[in-house]
């Protein structure tokens, strides 16, 4: 009897597990479960770095480059990071330029994030921000290298075909020294090229917003100071929203995420208990 029970614990039908998982995700969407959350050091550093950039009066005529490599497939993490970031830039009146090397990013980033927030914060295209648009991934390396010494010559035209030199926001932006910070929102390995070919002695500050699955591999870059702050997936987005006092999706799903983690830990324990109990029962039978 016992042996059967332990065996069952190891062979729970995956459809039951998926159904329970869905329930654990859906319930917190309907019922607000207030669980305490604390910003991680990396999220706090991300926020503090941009605060410092905004406080430095020498950055008044500079821009922040927002490189977006994400598409709808990682919207669940990257869109909310992007939304929190653009909110922060607009709250602090920092000028910025968006750039992407992903075909789908430009439309999603502009329509879902930048344009609604620009309306909310009164940001004017060309005066406060500009969209450098999409460049094919094949010219990624050469574009990043080009930005070091000649930004207008590398980008030439914005996403709508207008020469970027005609925008007020680009008036004083010529080379890397006119960039206040670089922020990379990405589900792919795009960081290495920025660090290797654009950054010089950790200047301008480089901030990183990857999907959570990528984050652990970038801790060495944080330790070495090459990355000044990192938003780890949706947790990072939630942290950032908390720091900005703008509760949105990231903060809202924190409880759902915590419950799902608890469920997965419970399932791992159940599976292991079943495994070890079955093994012990077999040993007893053998002896």
């Amino acid at each position, binding site marked *: 009897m016992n042996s059967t029970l332990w065996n069952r614990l190891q062979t729970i039908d995956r459809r039951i597990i*998926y159904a329970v*998982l869905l329930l654990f995700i859906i319930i917190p969407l309907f019922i607000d479960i207030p669980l305490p959350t604390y910003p991680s050091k990396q999220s706090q550093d991300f926020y503090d770095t941009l605060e410092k950039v905004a406080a430095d009066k020498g950055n008044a005529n500079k821009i922040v480059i927002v490189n977006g490599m994400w598409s709808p497939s990682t919207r669940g993490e990257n869109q909310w990071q992007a939304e929190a970031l653009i909110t922060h830039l607009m709250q602090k009146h920092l000028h910025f330029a968006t750039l992407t090397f992903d075909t789908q990013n430009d439309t999603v980033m502009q329509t879902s994030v930048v344009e609604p927030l620009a309306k909310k914060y009164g940001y004017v295209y060309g005066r406060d921000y500009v969209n450098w648009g999409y460049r094919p991934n094949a010219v990624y390396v050469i574009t990043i290298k080009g930005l070091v010494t000649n930004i207008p010559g590398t980008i030439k035209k914005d996403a709508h075909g207008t020469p970027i030199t005609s925008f007020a926001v680009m008036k004083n932006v010529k080379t890397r020294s006119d960039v206040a910070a670089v922020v990379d929102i990405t589900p792919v390995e795009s960081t290495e090229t920025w660090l290797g070919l654009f950054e010089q002695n950790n200047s301008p500050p480089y901030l990183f917003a990857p999907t959570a699955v990528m984050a*652990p591999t970038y801790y060495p870059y944080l330790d070495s*100071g090459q990355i000044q702050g990192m938003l780890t*997936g949706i947790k990072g987005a939630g942290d950032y929203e908390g720091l900005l006092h703008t509760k949105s999706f990231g903060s809202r799903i924190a409880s759902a*995420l915590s419950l*799902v983690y608890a469920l997965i830990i419970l399932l791992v324990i159940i599976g292991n208990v079943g495994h070890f109990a079955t093994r012990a029962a077999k040993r007893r039978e053998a002896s």
Partner: protein
Amino acid sequence: MTEYLKHLLDPVLLFGALGTIAILSLVFKENRFYRLFEHIFLGLALGYDLELTWTTVLKPQFWDAMVHDGQWAWIMAVPVGLMFYGVYTQRFAWMSRLVFGIFFGLAAGTAFQDFSARFMPQVTRSFAPNKSLIPPPPTPGDPHALLHQVSFVLNNFLFLGIVVCVLVYFLFAFEQKNRAVLRTAQLGRWVLMFSFGAIFGSTIMTRMALLIDRMYFIFHDWLRLVKG
């Protein structure tokens, strides 16, 4: 038709919701509904990529510049691009080698700069004993200054120990017979396992965040059952 029904039947939202349900249905069973939407998504993505590449890159930067703006030298890009296809015939393979060689050279030159700029700061930071093992002066007014300094030193000793253990684990040039080397390598393997565990945990976070986002779309954006 009520306002709510109109919203539910909005083609964009309805297609998004059906697509989400179809793709997620795979976890229960392989089925035709899933296959249909998989093909639709692949076709859409490819078509979208092609259209965007032409309208935002090739047309304004290559075609219009060449045909309308008098930058006729862009025509040279065509034969150079065609040289890549020489790889498919024995007779013209030398052409592809020529362009591949040039591109390899460019990439190799960039890789040198890229490698040193990316990894040298990490190497120097790992082996800077003055920075790593001597704690910074205490912050004035910090009631736990001593604790912070001790934890700083312990943390950095731990860091150095782990770096050495992992490096020893990757010494494959000789057989690890010496007991001390063997144990150090084993410890290195264990700490690597810890880091893989962290990556697994983060992977779950990513996958669950994407699933929660889809559920949010279904219940908030489409069905409007969730408020806020």
